[in-house]
């Protein structure tokens, strides 16, 4: 019976049968994602716990900030995931507007709350770090303010995508909001280079010149991969339930129509 519920396609098949429609079809996504979910969940928990336990109990304390620097093992991964999450939201919105793809709409709807959660963790952990080191929970410098804007963009998207009786209207409006808000991403990334900020500059650089000791870098990277996978697990779980919810509603409506 479950097979019957899951198998039919919710999306109208793309006329051209392009790769996009073949692999991003909600029914096929469900069949691929559901068996992968337990693995995703297991790896995200193992990596996150390893990274944080290593960082908090085994990595050396910082020469300048002492044990307070250990907040980075939560703060930095949360910050990276909140930005990557928004980038994913923007990509979904792009697919939603150009290809009107139903899976992109559903994904955008489910990414919003998860991304907002990670941004909230980033803001709170940053405030708890700022008080003992800077002497202030919050300052209005370019990095902090642009991340707060990111949080509000997430909240606006969450509200807008659910604000219409006609769901399609909500998807269109929220996709435009998400795409316009994407200009904030480079601002967050480069804020510490373009303007004077109280927030520190970049420690890790992909082009070389990192300034972090190796046994502090490893737990940070492991925790980051863990956080990314947590994000992926949460979004995939929510997406699977959203697809099934839609399918159930469609089946119930069809049954009611047959009965009438």
């Amino acid at each position, binding site marked *: 019976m479950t097979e019957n519920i899951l198998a039919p396609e919710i999306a109208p098949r793309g006329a051209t049968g392009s790769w996009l429609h073949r692999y991003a079809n909600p029914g096929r996504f469900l069949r691929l994602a559901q068996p992968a979910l337990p693995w995703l969940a297991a790896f995200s928990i193992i990596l996150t716990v390893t990274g944080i336990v290593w960082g908090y109990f085994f990595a050396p304390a910082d020469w300048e900030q002492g*044990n307070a620097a250990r907040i980075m093992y939560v703060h930095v991964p949360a910050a990276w995931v909140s930005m990557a999450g928004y980038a994913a939201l923007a990509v979904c919105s792009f697919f939603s507007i150009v290809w009107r793809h139903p899976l992109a709409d559903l994904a955008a709807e489910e990414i919003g709350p998860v991304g907002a959660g990670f941004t909230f963790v980033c803001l709170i952990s940053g405030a708890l770090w700022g008080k003992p080191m800077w002497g202030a929970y919050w300052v209005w410098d370019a990095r902090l303010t642009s991340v707060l804007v990111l949080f509000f963009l997430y909240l606006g998207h969450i509200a807008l995508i659910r604000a219409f009786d006609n769901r399609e209207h909500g998807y269109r409006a929220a996709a435009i909001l998400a795409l*316009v808000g994407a*200009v904030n991403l480079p601002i967050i990334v480069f804020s510490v280079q373009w*303007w004077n900020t109280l927030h520190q500059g*970049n420690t890790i650089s992909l082009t*070389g010149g990192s*300034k972090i000791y*190796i046994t502090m870098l490893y737990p940070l990277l492991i925790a980051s991969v863990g956080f990314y996978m947590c994000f992926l697990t949460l979004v995939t779980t929510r997406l699977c339930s959203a697809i099934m919810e839609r399918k159930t509603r469609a089946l119930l409506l069809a049954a009611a129509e047959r009965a009438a």
Partner: protein
Amino acid sequence: MTPRKKRRLYLLLACGIAVGSATALSLAAFSSTLTFFLGPREVLAKDPAPGMDFRLGGIVQVGTVNTVVSNGTPTTNFRVTDGQASIPVTFTGVLPDLFREGQGIVAIGSMTSGGDFSASEVLAKHGSSYMPKDVEENLKNSGKWNPKFGPPPDASTWNDMAVKSNGS
């Protein structure tokens, strides 16, 4: 791709370019207000009126910190520098733990008529290099880096330095 999808794609790209350049232009125009603090050189060039609040940022100049305690309240005099200019700062109160010579700080306050900066609040701006205390001492003793004078060399040059103890 159908013509309608192609049209939406081009429309979206055009909107993206428009929104992007509008944002870039606004940010460039408001750059001076987006910056969190002014360096000593900018302060000397702008010459803000005495009593007007602003944030002064820079490095605590080595050898200029002088603290006097009267009635249990410390008053600290030091100079903030950006390497080229420096401004004398007076602050009454308890400084943040990270305050030291060579430390980046941001002071909130205003200029006095005497050309000093009178700070009502001092924030410490910690660096962006993370390493154990042992490694920092090792670098300092070997003359490769002194935290008083700028950021350390690339981590690849000190990642193999041994750590004697874990934790604090």
